[in-house]
């Protein structure tokens, strides 16, 4: 056991102890606490909790690596995963808060007065959150695999056990305050290495200002090697793929059940707007830094690692080669590692760069702890979404309306354990890079909940038939496109699997509108309830009149 292992493990365990302490301190006692933290979390803390929930292994571990590999084309992830907050905060969050529901499927069930709609929405929630959690488990596998210097598969298995225990005992209230702590850990862990690299390479401690020149230099290095420039647009995919991916990530953000659930924990519509603004500010700290991380990593790899003798490669290469995620092969046989002989998986860039840049054992350990915080916190929120979709929406609302609080909590916890085990099985042999798997979850949300919720909130004429047809068509189109593009090589305008949501959304909007118009309008009571969502809490719409309470 070396010093690095002990330091990393100690930092991870210390942060875990902190999360567990907070969770136990706030241990959920009632059902309403378990799902929505008893409502009334202040916007600024709710913003941090949304940030931790939101920034998953994909943002923390995967994104910088993806940008490094894709160059400009990877920036679709930066704009997509942030721009969606405007759709969410303007179009949906305050209105959904006013509706007073607990979960997204419940809102759909009440708005469309249909148990079929409720069940389909609950199943969509489970599919989306499940897909998303595969990415998280795969991410925890990378971290744990590196820590114990074992295969990432074994690391994933250890991650499964940790996450199942963690989520089943927390509940949302524990999770809200735990997530505030996780946000702080993960943002510090992400910023420290970027600031250090910026100092090392440019002498400026502010990476956001200094990396522009590095981006330019990367372009020069690429030109010398005869490659296309790092910042050249649309080299790795078409312009349409860029736009489709960006739209998919934005609309998916507005349709993600576990993120929307966060907005149910605020007290008013006003608090919902402020939570959205704070959330994006906190999230942006990481998103501003990821392209800098990518540029510095690539610069270090190109200038300090490429060109060195294969026999004299530093120790970090061996530990990463052991995880199966790094390959160095001297294909030209000249004993020197060339840039094109270095095959580095997207998912290890963030974890490996602090070692490559020699930032010291403490920073390396801190990054490992931050990555675990990102994977755990998001997995926690996702598993709560899965468990409430099953235990609350299906079990309690449909199967057993007289279930006691205790029974519902028990069913919720069993759901969490089963879902984690299944997601873990899939994550053993991940079907793609972390950002890619997570992008599929967004594509499904874009093809299902985004159209369903936008029409449900903004169009009183939308009825249950239209909604059900729209959800099913959107889901089918999105899933078929993902599979056809990934395994069949089928594309339209060069749009690949990660941009599939755009087709799902178009199909779902069209189906929902056409079927709604072709069938009977919803009852007057439902239409009134939809108009009621336009106004703040104090105003109530009833029978064509507006009433105000003072």
């Amino acid at each position, binding site marked *: 056991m070396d010093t690095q292992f002990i330091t990393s493990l100690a930092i991870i365990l210390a942060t875990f102890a902190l999360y567990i302490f907070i969770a136990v301190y706030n241990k959920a006692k009632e059902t*309403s606490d378990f799902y929505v933290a008893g*409502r*009334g979390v202040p916007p600024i803390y709710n913003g941090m909790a949304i940030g931790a929930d939101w920034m998953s292994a994909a943002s923390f571990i995967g994104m910088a690596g993806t940008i490094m590999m894709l160059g*400009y084309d990877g*920036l*679709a992830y*930066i*704009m997509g995963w*942030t*721009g969606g*907050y*405007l759709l969410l*905060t*303007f179009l949906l969050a305050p209105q959904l808060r*006013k509706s*007073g*529901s*607990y979960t997204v499927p*419940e809102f759909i069930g*009440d708005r469309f007065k249909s148990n079929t709609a409720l069940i389909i929405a609950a199943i969509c929630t489970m599919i989306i959150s499940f897909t998303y959690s595969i990415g998280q488990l795969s991410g925890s596998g990378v971290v744990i695999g590196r820590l114990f210097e074992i295969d990432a598969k074994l690391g994933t298995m250890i991650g499964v056990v940790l996450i199942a225990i963690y989520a089943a005992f927390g509940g949302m209230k524990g999770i809200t305050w735990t997530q505030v702590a996780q946000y702080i850990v993960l943002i510090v862990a992400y910023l420290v290495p970027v600031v250090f690299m910026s100092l090392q390479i440019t002498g400026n401690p502010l990476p*956001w*200002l200094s*990396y*522009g*020149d590095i*981006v*330019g230099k990367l372009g020069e290095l690429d030109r010398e090697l005869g490659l296309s420039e790092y*910042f*050249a*647009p*649309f080299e790795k995919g078409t*312009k349409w793929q*860029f*736009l489709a991916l*960006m739209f998919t990530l934005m609309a998916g953000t507005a349709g993600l059940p576990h993120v929307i659930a966060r907005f149910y924990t605020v*007290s*008013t519509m*006003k608090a919902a*707007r*402020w939570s*959205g*603004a704070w959330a*994006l*500010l906190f999230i*942006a700290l990481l998103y*501003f830094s990821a*392209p800098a991380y990518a540029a510095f990593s690539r610069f270090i790899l190109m200038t300090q690692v490429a060109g060195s003798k294969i026999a004299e490669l530093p120790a970090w290469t061996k530990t990463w080669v052991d995880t199966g995620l790094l390959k160095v092969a001297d294909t030209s046989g000249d004993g020197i590692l060339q840039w094109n002989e270095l095959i580095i998986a997207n998912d290890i860039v963030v974890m490996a760069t602090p070692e490559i840049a020699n930032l010291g054992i403490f920073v390396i350990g801190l990054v490992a702890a931050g990555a675990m915080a990102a994977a755990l916190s998001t997995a926690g929120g996702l598993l709560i979404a899965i468990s409430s979709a099953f235990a609350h929406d299906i079990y309690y609302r449909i199967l057993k309306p007289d279930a006691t609080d205790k029974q519902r909590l028990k069913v919720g916890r069993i759901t969490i354990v089963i879902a984690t085990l299944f997601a873990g099985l899939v994550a053993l042999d991940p079907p793609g890079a972390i950002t890619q798997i997570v992008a599929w979850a967004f594509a499904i949300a874009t093809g299902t909940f985004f159209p369903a919720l936008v029409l449900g909130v903004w169009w009183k004429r939308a009825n249950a038939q239209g909604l059900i047809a729209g959800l099913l068509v959107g889901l089918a189109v999105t899933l078929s496109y993902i599979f056809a593009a990934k395994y069949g090589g089928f594309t339209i305008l060069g749009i690949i699997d990660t941009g599939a949501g755009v087709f799902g959304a178009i199909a779902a909007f069209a189906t929902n509108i056409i079927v709604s118009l072709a069938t009977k309008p919803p009852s007057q009571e439902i239409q009134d309830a939809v108009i009621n969502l*336009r*106004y*703040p*809490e*104090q*105003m109530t719409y009833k029978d*064509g*009149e*507006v*009433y*105000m*309470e*003072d």
Partner: protein
Amino acid sequence: MVKKIDKIKADAYFREKNTYMVIYFIIWAIVSYGVVLFAEPLSNVYFNGFPFHYFMGAQGALAVFIILLFVNAFVGDKIDKKYGIDDKRNEEIGRNTTVDH
């Protein structure tokens, strides 16, 4: 105390909010989709060491998104005040109107 108010007033509230929302969305679309559509010509312009299209994708669009969200929160509060909406009262009502489980 519940009193009936003019529907026209309530609708003016709704319309005012929506007008601002449309403006925000136009700006949002220009800085993200607009810049991507014209990425090639913009790549010849430099800003702080970056080609401009890269700067917008990595920092510019994101900064505009944050500003828009905070402007929306401030302006939303202003509009609420103009129409006599009291958030303390909203909080109480919000607590009571929650669907009972």
